[in-house]
């Protein structure tokens, strides 16, 4: 699944580790989500989107599920 996490992280000058700590996950999970290897659960997707002040649809490309 395509996500804007990497782009948003770069804008905020955040490392994967810092984002992981803020949303309650690990750096490896953030890395897997960014590369599309792992699809985040709804609570984690919500936490990530909320952290950036955006909606889930604005961070995650959900069109493949339509």
């Amino acid at each position: 699944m395509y996500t804007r996490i990497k782009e948003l992280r770069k804008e905020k000058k955040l490392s994967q580790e810092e984002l992981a700590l803020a949303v309650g996950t690990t750096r490896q999970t953030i890395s897997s989500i960014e590369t599309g290897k792992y699809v985040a659960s709804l609570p984690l997707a919500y936490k990530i989107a909320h952290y950036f002040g955006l909606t889930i649809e604005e961070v995650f490309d959900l069109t493949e599920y339509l």
Partner: protein
Amino acid sequence: MMRGSNKMENYKKVVKSRIWMLSLIVILAVGLGIFDVFWASDEMKESTIYGFQSGVIDALGILAAIFLIRYKKLLHNEKELKIQYNKENDERMKAIKAKAGMPILLITSLAMIIAGVIAGYFNFTIFTVLIITSVCQLLVSLVVKLIYTKIM
């Protein structure tokens, strides 16, 4: 729903209870080690099963001591404690562990090792079969875990 600070307070209590349990294991391992050196008879020391049992207990004692030091350090570092909490509750890792058959495979393997040691005092073949089966089971689980860590 639990708030962040409550979660961490509860996790601190979990870590403290783990420290207590690990301390017990270390004391038990040291106690058995002392028994082994001073009071175990030569006949006992020559037994393969007794040797295996002592080796497992010593290894458990060393591992418990390592984890004990790690947990003690965690209690004094809020950031590291949060990282450890996140590691233990990470949804991806939980999914990988579930695919690798954890924790049931670990429980059955430990049960087989304990049963193997007890059975070993009566029949060496049963001991060998149970230990090899449990080790193979754990190895398969480890390989599955490594594969899923790469692809997930």
